[in-house]
């Protein structure tokens, strides 16, 4: 296995773990934690491809990862703010309970 493949596999595993957490945990904040893990796994993928791909001197991959980090931070802020707002309204963070949007 090439180093790149190893890195990609690790990233894939972390991604899957994050997805599993987002899909199975009741608490809304843990869903956000899962999402953060998924984003991080994607960043790892990007950097791995930058390091082992053609033209690393262009810095494309790393720049992409940096911007992704910035956006993820913003997203985390907004998301947690939403969770707090929902908590204030519904008195719970249990996602199984929050089904007002039920069709």
């Amino acid at each position: 296995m090439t180093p790149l493949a190893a890195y990609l596999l690790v990233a894939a595993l972390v991604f899957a773990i994050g997805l599993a957490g987002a899909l199975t945990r009741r608490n809304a904040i843990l869903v956000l934690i899962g999402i953060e893990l998924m984003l991080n796994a994607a960043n790892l993928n990007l950097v791995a491809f930058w390091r082992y791909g053609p033209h690393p001197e262009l810095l494309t991959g790393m720049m992409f990862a940096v911007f992704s980090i910035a956006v993820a931070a913003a997203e985390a802020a907004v998301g947690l703010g939403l969770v707090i707002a929902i908590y204030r309204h519904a008195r719970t963070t249990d996602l199984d309970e929050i089904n007002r949007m039920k069709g």
Partner: protein
Amino acid sequence: MQEAMQFTPYTVASWIGKILWLIPALPIVAAGFIALLKQPKRKLASSLAISALFVSLLLALAAFGDVLAGWASGHAVRETVNFAWMHFGTTSVDLGWVLDPLSAVMLVMVTFVGLLIFIYSVGYMAHDENYTRFFCFLSLFAGAMLGVVISNSILLLFMCWELVGLTSYLLIGFWFQKPSAAAAAKKAFLTTRVGDIFFLLGIVWLFAQSGTLLFYNQGAGSMEPGALAGMLAAHGGLGLSAATAIGLLIFAGAVGKSGQLPLHVWLPDAMEGPTPVSALIHAATMVAAGVYLIARVYPLMSAGLQPGGTTVALSVVTWVGAATAVFAALIAVAQNDIKRILAYSTVSQLGYMMAGLGLGGVAIGMFHLITHAFFKALLFMGAGSVIHGCHEEQDIRHMGGLWKDMRWTFYTYAAGMLALAGFIPFAGFWSKDAILESAGSWHPSKAPFYLLVFGALLTAFYMTRQVSYVFFGKFRGHGHAHESPRVMTVPLAILAFFAVVLGLVGTPAWPWFRSFLTDRPSHFEWAGFAEPGIFTLMLTSTAVVVVGLLLGWWLYGNKSPRAEEPDALEKVMPLVWRALSNRLYVDEFYGATFIAFYFWWARVADWLDRCVWGGIVAAVTWLFGLLARFDRFFDENWVNGGFDKGCEELAVGGGLLARVQSGRVQTYLRLLALAVVVLAAILIWSSRG
């Protein structure tokens, strides 16, 4: 003696010939106007009718004068005006009218007698509330009868013939609220209908055989030598020639209309109508239409006639006539209703007329027709006067002694009675004698002669009986009899005059009538009496009449038996009397056979209609009902139900699908992730492939 008609070729229609159609048209138009009048307008109604007929009389006299002038100058007149009514391809339906001695004489007689009866009706029907309707129908009848007389087309004759039958029905049933009157009208119509069917067959055959509907048409008519020869040669079935067969069929129509045996049954019942109706229709005119018809088609009946012999058609006519004469006279002996006696007398005299036609030709028959019209109308009107005077009493056993209270009626009635009996020198004597003379010299058989003589005896007998019952003896009715008003007695007097005098135009000494009809010159000569057999015949017939009169007087004379007592003759021959007074059971016979069969047939038809056709209809209905029920089942359960089920399934499916929208975020996330997996798999697969 039978004579063939001899006419020189026609002259072009004179002015009167051209307007001859007005004669029937005026009374019919008058009838139309009267029909539109309201009931209270009585005077207007009768004035319209009388004036229309009066104008027709004047025109008829003008026509008669024209024909007479032609005869006197030696050129026989037969003017025809023909026109085509409808065209069918190459053939056409022709109508037209003819003016010749025969029609001229009938025209004058019908209009004159008719006018007198119209005037008489003004008095007779004065108390009736349907006065206007009466004159409407009377006028319509007059127009129709005149149409029959002038018609040159057998189709036009038939149309007017039917119209005459219709008006007869309307007038017999004039007092339709009386069930007997309504029944009598129906009987008259249906019985004459039976004759008319054969008549129609005859018309159709005549048209088919001769190719034309017209009697006279410049040599192409059906009564002219060309067509007659063709009909004589053609076969008519049963070994007869077509001419004979057609003649017999046409005679069947006359049998119905003129009340010959066996279709005479309607005439006595027709006395239910008012007396003017009986006088006009059932004495003078309508019943004479049958005789007139035979006179009109006489060339056909006598086609192939050899001198001294006779044709099959004419023999049949003679035998039927003679039989009827005696049959009806026998029944008249035993009747007690004044009008019924006269009705049977009419039937009997019609028999004489038919026999006269068959034995002696047109002139002989027509002469008796003309004289009979006058004195029979007179007798009926006299009877009407008597009924009126006795307060609507019609049974002769409740009358009597009227010669004192109703003098005018009595004298005129006596004149008429003597004319009918054939007492010299009244009109009836000469006309009946002419018939007897022809019968006496009829070669095939002498039987008609003896029958007719016997009939004359009976005629004198029953008339004497009637006159004795009515005018002599003492009055057995209720109340007091009174003479009728002038408007009724004056026509009686006029007719009585003719009853006496009219015979003089047909005596052997001066056979003007015969000559007029057969286009020979005639002179008055006493030597006419001296012809062989004439004198003996005159004596014989006078003797017979006297015997009858004396017999009647002897039995009935001045005696006035009460109604409950049996009749004088009944005491002598009770069984014969019973048969005769029951009219020889002819009506009962018809009732048991034809009419019973008809009702049975009606029941069969009813059963057929209800059970068979009705059953089929019911079956079809049931089938359709079944189909409808199945249709409904199908529609409700399969179509509707299927549709409903489908909708239910859709709803269920929708419900199932709606579960995806759980409102839970994680569900949506899972679906997203699943979609990504699927998408990635697809992309990988496609890129690898």
